[in-house]
């Protein structure tokens, strides 16, 4: 009886195994065919470019020794505007897209961005930010949060390229113009001065300064633009056409403040030390921050029903 029992039991067990296998196969097929959500792909994309962006910022530059203190110093030198912009991205990140499955284009672009940022260059981060930003701005299925993040991405990309080594010759060119303006302003105060390319020679004080790319009036413009967009979006409004005039006003204010600072730097060595390295630097930073923050606040006040700059900005 025992062999018969064994024989009888085995087919039953076999049937169970087949059923389990079939169920497992269905589950496996389900796992394979289960599409990834558009929101999840967007979050992965943001994660990839943010890791690359901040890694590039924190990476030690020439002559530095890699270490935590140097990394923190690089983040602080990079400026608070980028931190603010990325905070906005993180806040909006969880609300990107609806629960729909991701399209093949979205997945492909996410991977393309991920591959681009493998290159340890700030320019690569800028390129990936541009690609993702344009995708978020152009996608018909993207909601308001996605468009906000898209705008921030494009602004961050512009800032990355604007402050890169590639555009240094442009800032040097602007530096020569700044030097000429500086000399004109010094002469207005009856201070004898001469200009040599991007250098200002204050003859009265026997003191000279050179306009390096980081000191020119053009250098901070991309950050001012980024701050303007970030503040407008933080106030919960989409960017509208009439905001552009306020943005231009904000950029002009930044240029004027830089020119005034450069005159103060060129006065004499004591003034240079105070405004370049001393307490004057903090005062200038605060004064420069005021119009950069106030202008977008004024721009968004009482104009909530105006046309959005982007055609689909209010649809989602």
């Amino acid at each position, binding site marked *: 009886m025992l062999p018969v029992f064994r024989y009888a039991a085995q087919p039953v067990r076999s049937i169970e195994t087949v059923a389990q296998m079939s169920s497992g196969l269905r589950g496996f097929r389900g796992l394979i*065919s289960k599409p990834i959500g558009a929101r999840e792909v967007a979050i992965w994309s943001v*994660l990839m470019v943010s890791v*690359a962006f901040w890694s590039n910022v924190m990476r030690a530059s020439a002559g530095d020794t890699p270490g935590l203190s140097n990394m923190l110093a690089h983040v602080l030198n990079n400026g608070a505007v980028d931190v603010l912009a990325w905070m906005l991205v993180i806040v909006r990140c969880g609300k990107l897209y609806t629960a729909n499955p991701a399209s093949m284009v979205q997945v492909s672009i996410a991977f393309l961005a*991920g591959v681009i940022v493998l290159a340890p*260059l700030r320019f690569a981060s800028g390129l990936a930010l541009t690609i993702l930003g344009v995708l978020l701005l152009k996608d018909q299925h993207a909601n308001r949060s996605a468009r906000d993040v898209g705008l921030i991405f494009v602004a961050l990309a512009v800032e990355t390229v604007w402050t890169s080594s590639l555009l*240094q010759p442009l800032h040097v060119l602007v530096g020569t113009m700044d030097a000429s303006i500086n000399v004109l302003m010094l002469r207005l105060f009856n201070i004898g001065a001469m200009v040599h390319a991007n250098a200002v020679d204050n003859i009265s004080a026997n003191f000279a300064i050179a306009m390096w790319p980081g000191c020119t009036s053009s250098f901070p413009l991309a950050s001012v633009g980024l701050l303007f967009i970030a503040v407008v979006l933080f106030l919960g409004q989409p960017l509208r056409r009439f905001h552009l005039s306020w943005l231009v006003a904000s950029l002009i204010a930044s240029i004027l403040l830089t020119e005034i600072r450069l005159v103060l730097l060129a006065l004499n060595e004591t003034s240079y030390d105070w405004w370049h390295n001393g307490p004057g630097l903090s005062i200038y930073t605060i004064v420069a921050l005021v119009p950069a923050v106030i202008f977008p606040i004024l721009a968004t006040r009482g104009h909530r029903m105006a046309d959005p700059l982007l055609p689909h900005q209010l649809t989602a």
Partner: protein
Amino acid sequence: MKALLRSGFVALIASTLAIQTCASWRSNADSNPMASVAAGLARLGIQPEQPMTTDVLVGHTMSCELPIHAMLLPIGGQEDERVSDLGLANEATRYIYLGSVRAKRSEAVVLSRWLLARARFVVGFSPVNPSDTLILVMLPRACRSLETMEWATLSPWQ
């Protein structure tokens, strides 16, 4: 599929972090470019007079009584006014950058060479990050033989 895509994203993030960490530790640009210029001049048979004490290097050679001057300039052009201040009436100039030797400064040549060298460094074909300074050599016009020397030795292509 979902798990595969997630794995791909995680792999890309991990690779980014790994590459960035490696890039931090890889050799950076020349830490003392003036000393390298002095060594390059010595290889050409020019004896540097004051290495590393000033930002202008003065050299002498047996074939010419007049001194040769060499200085470093940022490739962005920040210090070009220094050259105009020098008033080089009696001297011929050589702008040397990554194997290129030119009598006049060419932004396009400098930028293209920097980009190519930087790309080679990034992908690992070159171990050296390209310098962000070019070398300007000022040669006395009276000594014509100096103009035909292998000045690219001072900043060879990497």
